[in-house]
């Protein structure tokens, strides 16, 4: 279980997170929706300290972290128990697909070379990339890169995987393959996932919980059916109306 309590974050004088609290049970999928600039990316990035929060507490299973006063050791601990899938993939450009997945296993988790290889290949197989394992990122399409990115995150068996708009940089015809993989791992791997996306369909089909954010606060939280089909808040309704019109 991961629980965020009262996350605050400002850039200069603009407050981007104004006391965000969310809870995600182990093995469940939470989708965060919200208009551009509402702070979704910032929230995800504050979880693994890429953008440290000014204030807030995080509970990761049984460990409590004060986000504003975490030591270097605690930051590493959080990062080693979480993984992130980036909007623009961020695969290590100097490594093949296989090496990308193996890197964290060998270097961070100190796994033996052989064991790491087996595990990395298992996850590349899972995302359908085993036949491209020796390709470098530049030699892969966006969708393929993102699938490797997902394998890299999965292989670490993190307590939670953070997805920041994993399909929004992709050509439309490649979005489907990545969403399929995400659906598959939600089902098969029982991973705890927090997904920021504009794919309402994915939220409806896969999420256990949907959170609607706007202006740095959580406006509404609930089951996908409740939030998407009949949102209580006017702001949520307005946001969703844009998608049903398309």
């Amino acid at each position: 279980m991961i629980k965020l309590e009262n996350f605050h974050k400002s850039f200069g004088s603009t407050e981007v997170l104004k006391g965000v609290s969310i809870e995600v049970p182990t093995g469940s999928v939470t989708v965060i929706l919200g208009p551009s600039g509402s702070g979704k990316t910032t929230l995800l990035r504050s979880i693994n300290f890429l953008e440290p929060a000014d204030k807030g507490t995080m509970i990761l299973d049984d460990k409590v972290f004060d986000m504003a006063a975490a030591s270097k050791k605690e930051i590493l601990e959080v990062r080693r128990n979480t993984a992130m899938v980036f909007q623009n993939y961020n695969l290590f450009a100097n490594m093949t697909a296989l090496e990308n997945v193996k890197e964290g296993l060998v270097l961070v988790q100190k796994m033996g070379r052989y064991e790491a290889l087996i595990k990395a290949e298992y996850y590349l197989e899972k995302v359908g990339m085993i036949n491209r394992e020796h390709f470098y990122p530049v030699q892969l399409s966006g969708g393929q890169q993102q699938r490797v990115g997902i394998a890299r995150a999965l292989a670490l068996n993190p307590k939670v995987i953070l997805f920041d708009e994993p399909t929004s940089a992709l050509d439309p015809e490649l979005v489907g393959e990545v969403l399929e993989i995400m659906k598959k791992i939600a089902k098969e791997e029982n991973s705890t996932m927090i997904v920021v996306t504009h794919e309402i369909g994915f939220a409806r089909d896969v999420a256990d919980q949907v959170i609607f954010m706007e202006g740095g606060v959580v406006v509404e939280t609930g089951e996908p059916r409740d939030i998407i089909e009949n949102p209580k808040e006017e702001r949520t309704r307005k946001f969703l109306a844009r998608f049903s019109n398309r």
Partner: protein
Amino acid sequence: MGTIFSFEYMIKSFPTLLSMVDVTILVTVVSEFFAIILGCIIALTRINAIRLLDKVCAVYVSFIRGTPFLVQLYLICFGMPQVLNYFGMENPRSIPGILYVFLVMSLHEGGYIAEIMRGSILAVDKGQMEAAKSIGMTGYSAYTRVVLPQAFRMAIPALGNNVVSTLKSTALIFNVGVVDMMRRAELMGSFSYRHLELYIDIAVIYICLCFLVQLGTMMLERCTRMKNSTVS
């Protein structure tokens, strides 16, 4: 002294001068090695804005770039023994001159490489560092495994130029008593009075060395480009 130019003497002297090329190569290789390490340390210190130390590095780099190499050479080779002496060292002039030369050249090229590496580290996509951190790598691993390899690849042409310039700077080290091709040519010339032939030999040797470095750089660039590239 009959002919204006003795082709025969030029050919005859060539092997003698060439036999001294090991000094030139040794100085280049050793200094370039330490210069790259120093350059990376300075670059990282400045990029990560390590308090105070980054200011020291900035001053250092502008000193290196703002003073002639020959001045730096004299400063260290003639000035440093004086300082060592003051601090109680018995006979600092007994230290072989070549060690002073290693030091100056490493410090000098290090200042230039710092700027090369700073540029290329900053040119590596920020997302690379973030991805490394997100999987729990330490800053050290993130740099050595992800950022620096990519920065080096981008820096290959500039580093190649730097090696060429190091190579050419070695022509000055005879000024502080290191016996190399230049010194040998000077000695031979003082007997034969055929300076033209001797310095043409030296020019030929330097041209060949520089050509080899450029060739190596190009090959290195090509084989890293074939394997992968940062443009995505």
